[in-house]
């Protein structure tokens, strides 16, 4: 096997690096289109209400205003995971911040002033925020069609057998076999915002009867052809992507900002730009799912899990963006973490009156795991099992099977991650630091150290189809035709490396077409860590196909067979005869480009893996938790670009990841239904000034199925962190904690230092 690659595994300059750091890169907020108008959204003040009347007269009279739309005059487009239930504008509002009216005007300022001139009368309805309260018979009904506010299971997204629960084996048998049985409730309900630095933004331009051009900062712009076209009456969408100021999964579905802009453009006949403010991003865009498990686990003395049963209550907020899809993936991922013969885990997706939950990296799996692992640790504690040994024993191994999102039984053909776990534990110093359950690693006065560990993995590195073309031009250049958005990770640059490696071309001579659905074949996008394996495979296949065509064209010139040829630097050589060479131009001229075609077919047989070790220090006199050290360990088959990988793994901080255990949370006043911390001071996000010590352990056990033996791990860095920190803090303070975030009030409360009797007078 070749391991001495020219680009693969070596750090190379990101192709867009200079453009980004010099401000030349054009993000969506930098783009303008001739004749463009600016859109603004009037947002609901109430969490649940009927609109009795809307008066737009004054707003329409404001000079510069081109359109004011209400539920009465927007197209009847419906979105949301099925059945579609979210209208662009509706006569009922279901969360504070929901769109009530849309304005398009010549300037942003005029649009903002016009919004303030719209008069709305509401009939308030009672609101509900808790999943279990929402299912009560007397709870306010958020959608008439969803009885008890429970959404129906999804039956189509991932095929006719789409996974919507884990039911395997016989739980009663598992109960009989268990040495220990624990039961409890664990929850991950602080609904952190993934919070990419760039707010959601779009320019929509309606042309003629049914053509819509969309420029957007979407993670998967091409998906609009698949998801939005049918929802918008079968129109033709041309989707053009811009560089994405990060997404973390959240800017994928994107109809929440695309549809309002499209409606305004349709009404005005002009392009309309709609960029959210940070407060809208925080208070009216999607957050993580809320996740609560009432569960029961049986375990043997050796850490074998005999059964797992329970109800998984999923709070999706005011609508389901794709909650049932996320459940499918979450249920698959739970099985990767746990080799258990008897399951009965029944999810329910429930609507409540807060800003909706949607797609975020971790996609159901993180939300599930952050509640499921604490439940499992209750059993580990009883059985006195070291969690590292537990994860080592229970993480999916080659030959093990699992039901994936499509409801099919897949058998693992990937890597055995035992070595990654061992190497991570060794780097972290787990053996020295682990003192047993609910025991601190060290105590220094009021400061107590504790350690914890969590795991995650998905089998989505091979999800969905990718198609790509690679064009070889006579002037010795390769052009990749693919609608892969640059969502911040450097993936476009890294795909160029793969093509440069295949064709042995200088990296500067490999180009990427702009992200444009008119130019490129279908691309689902860089989700589920599929960039390296799925997209990479399609592009590599296209490059190989193009090279094959090149050799077929040029073999007669050398009077050899195509198999005798090789290429480098835009020259074709006869193998073993360095003197026998011709430039590509001799075969391709200026008119005869080779167009190679590549395709990747879905394959869910190769789970990836991440284990996160964390050490925390808790000040038991203030309740403050400091994250001291983090070790992430994984096995990626082959590193494509070391700095990109480092950045992805360091991304376990932020984006609703490890810090959602500590302070990332969306705080809702349940009397008003309002999000109180919709600004970057009150929404706590770790700053660069206080990063913990980070160490990354990356093994490279070659994986079959990819020319460079590589798999992706980008998405999964965040998911193991929260439960690892929860475990570490519990151990530090000697008190078991079963939910998040671990803010000082909750720590002091757990330590019995918050005496409710001290509260006097006020309620």
């Amino acid at each position, binding site marked *: 096997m070749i391991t001495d690659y020219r680009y693969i595994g070596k750090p190379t300059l990101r192709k867009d690096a200079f453009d980004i750091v010099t401000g030349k890169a054009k993000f969506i907020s930098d783009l303008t289109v001739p004749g463009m108008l600016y859109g603004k959204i009037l*947002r*609901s*003040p*109430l969490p649940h209400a009927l609109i009795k009347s809307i008066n737009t007269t004054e707003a329409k009279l404001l000079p510069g205003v081109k359109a004011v739309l209400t539920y009465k005059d927007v197209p009847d487009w419906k979105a949301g995971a099925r059945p579609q239930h979210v209208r662009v504008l509706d006569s009922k509002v279901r969360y*504070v*911040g929901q769109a009530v009216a849309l304005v398009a005007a010549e300037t942003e*300022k005029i649009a903002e*002033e016009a919004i303030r001139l719209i008069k709305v009368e509401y009939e308030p309805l009672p609101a509900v925020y808790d999943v279990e309260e929402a299912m009560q018979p007397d709870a306010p009904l958020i959608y008439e069609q969803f009885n008890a506010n429970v959404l129906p299971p999804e039956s189509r997204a991932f095929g006719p057998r789409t996974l919507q629960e884990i039911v395997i084996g016989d739980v009663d048998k598992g109960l009989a076999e268990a040495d220990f049985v624990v039961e409890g409730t664990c929850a991950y309900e602080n609904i952190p915002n993934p919070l990419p630095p760039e707010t959601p933004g779009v320019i929509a331009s309606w042309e003629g009867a049914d053509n819509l051009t969309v420029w957007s900062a979407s993670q998967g712009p091409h998906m609009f052809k698949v998801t939005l076209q049918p929802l918008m009456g079968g129109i033709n969408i041309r989707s053009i992507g811009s560089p994405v100021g990060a997404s973390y999964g959240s800017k994928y579905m994107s109809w929440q900002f695309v549809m309002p802009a499209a409606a305004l453009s349709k009404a005005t006949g002009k392009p309309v730009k709609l960029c959210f*403010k940070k*407060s*809208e991003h925080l*208070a*009216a865009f999607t957050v993580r799912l809320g996740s609560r498990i009432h569960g029961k686990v049986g375990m043997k003395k050796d850490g074998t899990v005999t059964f797992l049963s329970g109800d998984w209550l999923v709070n999706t907020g005011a609508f389901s963006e794709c909650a049932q899809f996320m459940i499918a993936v979450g249920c698959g991922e739970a099985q990767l973490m746990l080799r258990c013969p008897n399951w009965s885990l029944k999810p329910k997706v429930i609507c409540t009156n807060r800003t909706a939950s949607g797609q975020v990296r971790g996609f159901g799996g993180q939300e599930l795991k952050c509640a499921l692992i604490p439940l499992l640790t209750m059993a580990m504690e009883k059985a006195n099992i070291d969690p590292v040994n537990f994860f080592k024993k229970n993480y999916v191994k080659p030959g093990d099977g699992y039901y994936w999102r499509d409801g099919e039984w897949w058998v693992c053909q990937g890597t055995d991650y035992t070595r990654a776990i061992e190497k991570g534990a060794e780097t972290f110093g787990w053996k020295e630091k682990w003192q047993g359950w609910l025991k601190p690693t060290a105590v220094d006065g*009021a400061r107590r150290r504790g350690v914890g560990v969590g795991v995650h993995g998905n089998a989505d590195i091979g999800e969905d189809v990718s198609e790509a073309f690679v064009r070889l031009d006579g002037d010795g250049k390769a052009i990749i035709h693919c609608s892969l958005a640059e969502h911040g990770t450097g993936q476009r640059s890294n795909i160029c490396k793969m093509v440069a490696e295949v064709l042995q071309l200088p990296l500067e001579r490999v180009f990427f077409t702009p992200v444009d659905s008119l130019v490129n074949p279908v691309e689902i996008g860089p989700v589920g860590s599929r960039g390296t394996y799925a997209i990479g495979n399609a592009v590599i296949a296209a490059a190989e196909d193009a090279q094959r065509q090149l050799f077929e064209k040029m073999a007669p010139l050398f009077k050899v067979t195509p198999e005798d040829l090789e290429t480098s630097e835009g020259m074709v050589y006869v193998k073993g005869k360095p003197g026998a060479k011709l430039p590509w131009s001799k075969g391709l001229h200026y008119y005869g480009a080779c167009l190679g075609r590549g395709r990747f077919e879905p394959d869910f047989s190769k789970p990836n893996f991440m284990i996160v070790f964390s050490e925390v220090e808790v*000040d038991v*006199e*203030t*309740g*403050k938790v400091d994250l001291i050290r983090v070790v992430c360990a994984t096995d990626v088959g082959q590193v494509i670009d070391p700095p990109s990988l480092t950045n992805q793994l360091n991304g376990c901080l932020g984006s609703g990841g490890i810090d959602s255990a500590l*302070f990332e949370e969306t*705080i*809702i*006043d349940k*009397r*008003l239904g*309002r*999000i*109180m*911390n*919709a*600004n970057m*001071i*009150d929404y*706590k996000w*770790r*700053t660069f*000034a*206080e990063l913990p010590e980070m160490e990354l352990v990356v093994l490279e056990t070659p994986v079959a199925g990819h020319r460079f033996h590589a798999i992706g791990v980008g998405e999964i860095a965040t998911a193991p962190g929260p439960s690892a920190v929860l475990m570490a803090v519990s151990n530090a303070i000697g008190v078991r904690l079963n939910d998040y975030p671990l*803010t*000082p*009030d909750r720590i*002091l*409360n757990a330590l019995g*230092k*918050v*005496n*409710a009797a*001290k*509260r*006097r*007078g*006020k*309620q």
Partner: protein
Amino acid sequence: MKNFAHYNARSVAEATHLLAAYEGKAKLNAGGSDLIGVLKDRILPDYPEAVINIKTIPGLNTIEENDGGINIGALTKLVDIINSPLIKKNCPVLKETARTVASPQIRNVATLGGNLCQDTRCWYYRYPDGIGGMIKCFRKGGKTCHAVPGENQYHAIMGAKKCFAVCPSDTAVALTALGAVLTVAGTKGTRTLPVEEFYTPLGNMLALDEMITSVNIPKPDPAAEQAFLKFTLRKPIDFAIVSVASVITLDQGICADARIILGAVAPTPVRAHKAEEYLKGKKLSDDTAAEAAMLATVGANPLSKNIYKLEIVKTLVKRVINSGSCLS
């Protein structure tokens, strides 16, 4: 943002006369780090008609030693306070406090006067108009404080009656500990006012036509130990959940004088009088520190979600007494 008239004031007299002319509908702007956010989010029921830039007034950004102590102009930037050898030598507690404010970028523009006069961070008060409309509360002429039945984890645990927002200024806590006195100018002349008396339950003592021009810090006893501790979730950026400043004079291990000020617990900085009195004449020890810490919370009346702040107050008071100094 909406349009407003903008003035570059060339003198204190011009600024105060403009304030008077606009009858409360003008805002002063120095560093702008607080005001711009207030305007952009449109949190106030009335939008100002004018913004008066006072950075253009000469002579208000100096730090000088005089007979009475140290005089700091109101337009002195926080970064200059942090870098001043005079402040470092005489009032390290102020230096330490200024250092904990926000981030370097903000400290490079934010002024001492602005830090003292900034508006509260209460998230009901600050709720952005764009997400369903600003929240009318007691502080804005409404009838209720939404924090009382609502999300009050950062709100007042003592000294509040109708509005439970806390004073966000860190420097006010240190300046109260140092016994600093403000010089305030208005259209009718100037007056002085101790920082300790500057804040009111809904804001401060400035009349419509007044502005702070300077802060005078009486020269502290060189033997006094000065300390400041600020408790936040994140080290940079965050406003205090609780802060404590102390100036303690020891005479052969016995406390001769003590000033202990609590920040972010009430609408104003709070002097822990009972703790101060208790410490005087006592030998400082873990036990006396613990007793003083307990006394500092006497009279507290926390809300549903902020009882934990009492524990943090006690811890910080104990620690400022034990650590004794912010030079360590």
